[in-house]
């Protein structure tokens, strides 16, 4: 009996060593932006059903982490909600990696307020003035007399970077802004705080939030897809060189009609 257990334990140990090697050829690791995460996850599930030998593991961690993992060679596809930075390109060159960005979907950043807010739309300039702290009461914008509570994202998230480059244009966000770690918490705070203003990805809009028109353009799949809505951005999957093998199949799957349907289902905008 004792011998049997020993043999079993040994067999288990050997198996754990062998199994990963046996699967390595079809293993695909996708890591990066939490914004792209739902697309990658949903697409991977369907893709693995169709291709039983493929084994895709999808992780979040943020755009920066994904690209760092691509540079270190610990992932095959790096999801990013921003384009690669110059600093990261330099690191890539050092390690002999040539990052290629494959756009898989479009994402719009909606500016949201509490549903009780009377304001329906703002100019880009006004949003900027709110976020720098220049305008700090809704009264100044024609709303009720109420302090504005600025809610934003942490300064290293892809959503923040997009917002900063499109809306802030080099101005600093007020330090009094509440920096939050995810789209979800921004949505929660704005929906429970009367004077709050925040920004979230298009997929996070729901009945508990009121999305503002920006420069008179309503945020919707059509306006983001056509680029008419001013705060929109592409979402990337970075690969080392042009995608090959399983990575190529996977990205081509997302580009297909079926893949783009998943993109829409996850609340993002399909490529046009």
């Amino acid at each position, binding site marked *: 009996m004792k011998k049997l257990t020993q043999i079993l334990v040994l067999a288990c140990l050997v198996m754990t060593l062998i199994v990963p090697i046996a699967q390595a050829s079809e293993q695909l690791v996708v890591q990066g932006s939490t914004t792209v995460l739902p697309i990658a996850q949903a697409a991977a599930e369907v893709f693995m059903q169709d291709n039983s030998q493929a084994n895709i593991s999808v992780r979040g961690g943020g755009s*920066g982490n994904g690209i760092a993992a691509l540079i270190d060679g610990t992932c095959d596809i790096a999801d990013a909600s921003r384009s690669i930075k110059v600093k990261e390109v330099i690191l890539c060159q050092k390690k002999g990696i040539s990052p290629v960005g494959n756009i898989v979907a479009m994402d719009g950043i909606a500016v949201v307020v509490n549903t009780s807010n009377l304001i329906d739309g703002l100019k880009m300039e006004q949003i900027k003035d709110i976020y720098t702290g220049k305008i700090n009461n809704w009264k100044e914008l024609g709303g009720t007399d109420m302090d504005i509570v600025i809610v934003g994202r942490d300064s290293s998230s892809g959503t923040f970077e997009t917002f900063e480059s499109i809306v802030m244009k080099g101005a600093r966000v007020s330090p009094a802004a509440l920096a939050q770690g995810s789209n979800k918490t921004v949505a929660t705070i704005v929906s429970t705080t009367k004077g709050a203003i925040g920004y979230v990805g298009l997929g996070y809009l729901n009945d508990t939030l009121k999305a503002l028109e920006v420069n008179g353009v309503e945020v919707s799949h059509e306006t983001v897809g056509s680029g008419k809505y001013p705060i929109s951005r592409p979402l990337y999957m970075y690969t080392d060189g042009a995608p090959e093998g399983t990575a190529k199949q996977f990205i081509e799957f997302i580009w297909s009609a079926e893949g783009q349907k998943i993109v829409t289902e996850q609340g993002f905008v399909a490529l046009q």
Partner: protein
Amino acid sequence: MKKSLHLKDKIMKNVCFISSLTSIFFLTGITIILFKEGLPLFKEIGFAEFFLGKSWYPTFDPPDFGMLPLFIGSLWITFGAILIAAPFGISIAIFISEFSSPKTQIFLKSMIELLTGIPSVVFGFLGLVFLGPWLQKLLGLPVGLNSLTASLLLALMAIPTISSLSEEALFSVSRHFKEASYALGATKWETIIKVVVPAAFPGINTAIFLGIGRVIGETMTVLMVAGGAAIIPHSFLQPARPITATIALEMGETVVGSSHYHALFALACVLFILNLLLNLTANYLFVKPRRT
């Protein structure tokens, strides 16, 4: 047979020895990595700029790495939490050790232990959806996520640490002290306040310091309920952003090897040193009076 037992003994002893070494190994490793990744920041910016700088704009061009708002945010919320947790924790300890029957004692102790078992994310969630909005309505604040909400929740988390350690300290006060006090005609209350608590004071102090250590390192709750504004708070009704929350918030998305990355590690070093000092103080306070 005897020989093989001997061998087993030896093997077990060595296994235990190596296990105890691993903790030292990991501690050294963590310390080395923290400083190795944190110190390169000072090649790029000066010490004063980091320690005394008042603005934290790590991704701006050019970036600002002033840790003062974060450092004060941490201390501020911890101060608030201990202000609430210390009296509560000590009162609980006095009640358990002096006033309650053995049955209530066991019941209360296990309840408090259960409180320790609640994950910090649950506290954070309660704060985010319940306590925050409630305080906001009650006090008519613009936003419910602020230092006060964070301090209240952290106090709840520090109370078990403070009360169980204080209770131990009170319990270990010699019976003779109390008897002497009663013999002199002191009431129970006078005995507790004038004899038992002073005698247990070193232990209670240690409890408070360990409570501070527990609170200052707490991450998830403050990340969720402190608001996350990198300003130097002037009141408990303002949002704040402690060091731990900043690291958790920004580490995931920063470029590895950038100055922002090094700055976050430097923050971790500050926290590490702060916690080390707190633990050393707690140990010192505990050991010293026993020698006398």
